């Protein structure tokens, strides 16, 4: 998009005088199975990864997309009402998260960033858990082993190495390439376009390649790292990063839930068979602000956002479902209703969660006794008691 194009599409906020890089349409390398208009594009390589989907499954994906968007909206408004400290919205990234999340088998393990509420949902994690984290009640607090979904990681990129090490452990356990689909296990590491610049992420590429880790790197390129366009992080399409490390990379339309599902299934299968690691760039867009604390009008054009609205992941899927006769308006209404109830219940559970007491602060720092810390805790208890005495 040249300067003039930008001007033509309008909406240049004051102060935005340089052309922003064009996120483009993903280019010819991008794999898309469903156009923004909801037209299914047959694909001889990947269609077979969708063959087993029943109409129920297909409707389920829609339900996921809608509930996940609603969950996200709820998080946003809870923050606005002072109930959460912060909320990183997934708006626009529903298809990337649901498509990849639903591609996982129960035994596969996930390493999310802080934005994968949609993947958490697919894994069966109670959506209250991330809400409580952003509320400041916990720093995560769920058991990663319960749903094979690791804790959110906030320090950008760290989890890529955790995923690699976990995948190395899977190999040690003999859970790769046995041919038993219930046994072979893959790991998926989520990260953003910005994260691709971190040393840890690139070290993860090195380690994963060196040990053939059964790992899929799943990069949601939502075009922005807070205010910085992806062009600050890379000159070339991100999926090509993988080739510098000797493993395959592919770009998929991150707003196309079917493509995300098919591609992730394929890549996970490869990883489980011992052909890891692999890299998927899900080409998508952060429709909202980086988090509730951000003001994107400072750095990006509304025209860009407008353009991406036409590529909405839910709309196109809904259009296709309806056209194919997999779902009708009654179904869509029912899902909306479910979403309303879901959101209301979630909100209720969130706002009624009490703050933890100060005396619980010392729990779980160490798993075995730590006398110095215990002495401090005892002093704290005395100190609190001294107030109670006063009163």
């Amino acid at each position, binding site marked *: 998009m040249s300067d003039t194009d930008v001007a033509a599409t309008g909406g240049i906020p004051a*102060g*935005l005088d340089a052309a922003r890089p064009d996120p483009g349409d993903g280019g010819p390398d991008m794999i898309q199975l469903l156009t923004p208009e909801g037209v299914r594009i047959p694909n001889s390589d990947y269609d077979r990864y969708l063959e087993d989907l029943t109409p129920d499954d297909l409707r389920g994906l829609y339900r996921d997309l809608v509930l996940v968007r609603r969950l996200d909206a709820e998080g946003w408004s809870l923050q606005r009402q002072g109930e959460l*400290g*912060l909320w990183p919205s997934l708006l626009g990234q529903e298809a990337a998260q649901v498509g990849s999340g639903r591609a996982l088998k129960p035994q596969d393990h996930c390493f999310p960033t*802080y934005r994968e509420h949609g993947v958490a949902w697919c894994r069966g994690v109670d959506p209250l858990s991330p809400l409580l*984290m*952003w*509320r*400041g*009640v*916990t*720093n*995560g607090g769920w058991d990663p082993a319960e749903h094979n979904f690791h804790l959110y990681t*906030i*320090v*950008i990129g760290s989890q890529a190495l955790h995923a690699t090490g976990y995948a190395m452990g899977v190999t040690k356990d003999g859970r790769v390439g046995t041919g038993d689909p219930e046994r072979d296990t893959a790991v998926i590491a989520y990260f953003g376009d*910005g*994260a691709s*610049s*971190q*040393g*840890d992420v690139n070290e993860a590429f090195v380690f994963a390649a060196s040990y053939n880790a059964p790992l899929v790197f799943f990069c949601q390129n939502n075009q922005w*790292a*807070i*205010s*910085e366009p992806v062009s*600050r*992080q890379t000159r070339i399409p991100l999926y090509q990063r993988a080739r510098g490390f000797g493993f395959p990379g592919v770009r998929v339309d991150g707003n196309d839930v079917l493509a995300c599902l098919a591609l992730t299934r394929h890549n996970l299968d490869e990883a489980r068979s011992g052909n890891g690691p692999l890299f998927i760039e899900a080409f998508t867009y952060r429709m909202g602000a980086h988090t509730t*604390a*951000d*003001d994107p009008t*400072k*750095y990006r054009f509304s025209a860009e956002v407008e353009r991406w609205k036409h590529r909405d992941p839910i709309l196109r899927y809904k259009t296709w479902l309806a056209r194919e006769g997999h779902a009708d308006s009654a179904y869509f209404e029912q899902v909306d209703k479910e979403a309303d109830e879901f959101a209301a219940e979630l909100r209720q559970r969130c706002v009624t969660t009490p*703050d*933890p*007491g*100060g*005396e*619980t*602060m*010392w729990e779980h*720092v160490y798993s075995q006794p730590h006398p*110095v*810390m215990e002495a*401090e805790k005892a002093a*704290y208890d005395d*100190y609190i008691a*001294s*107030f109670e005495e006063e009163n």
Partner: protein
Amino acid sequence: MALEKLTLGKALTAGLRAAMDRDPKVVLIGEDIGKLGGVFRITEGLQKDFGEDRVIDSPLAESGIVGTAVGMALRGYRPVCEIQFDGFVFPAFDQIVSQVAKLHARSAGTVKMPMVIRIPFGGGIGSPEHHSESPEAYFAHTAGLRVVSCSNPEDAYWMIQQAIECDDPVIFCEPKRRYHDRAEFELGGEAPRELFSANVVREGEDVTLLAYGPTIRTCLEAANAAAEEGTAIEVIDLRTLSPLDTETILASARKTGRVVITHEAQSFLGMGSEIAAMLHEELFYDLEAPVVRVGGANIPYPPSRMEEHFLPDLDRILDGVDRALAY
């Protein structure tokens, strides 16, 4: 010279602007510091005025930020790095302790490292994990670095300029929960005091209360409260953590005989340990009471809904003062 009323954050912006105006070699680098002006808006407007060459939005990699800043310093620039939040300085830790801190010594003095690393630090703003930490002791323990912290708008304005002028690397800790504190002071003219000096912000005879950065305001509140009960607290804003201004600290401790030190960092091996050890050594016969340390709890920074229990607040500081007086 205009009398201005600025927030601490805007005072930093003004200080950065003054330094950039004065010296074309001053460059800023960090994540989101350009159009966005940084997540705390400290660099707001600077890229617009000084260009992308001097206000550099960096790729998302802290080691890269500090490591390339080292290279720019070697080329004659005076880089000012912004670390977005305290907890994100650790990916750059290696470059800071093994390169930034040591290059002057390694080169036998031929290479200077006039670099400032700005770190918004401390808690109390309801943030998620890694956004509320106080890493200053790690840096103060590292020979070759200098570590300072400002607590009010006027100091912020001057100290950032002085740090940029310093030929040694300076870790500049900004009390993020005080960014919106506002005060009136003169822009321009002469800096009221040396960068590496402490400041007695309130005089008193009964107890010396040492602090820096975000807890200074709390200490002043504590001093007010104590004054009502007849206790005269002398509050010292340390400002410089490495080198410590031991003279100012000792003079006050000699006078009062009782010292309390507070900071948000975990107390085990926090600044308070060094200061207590030093006072104990220097004033063995002069202290009336052991130095009381009121620090953050010795646990990882807790979820924000618990942070009030973690942080030294008015009550805990006054409790510390009481303990010092009880001896």
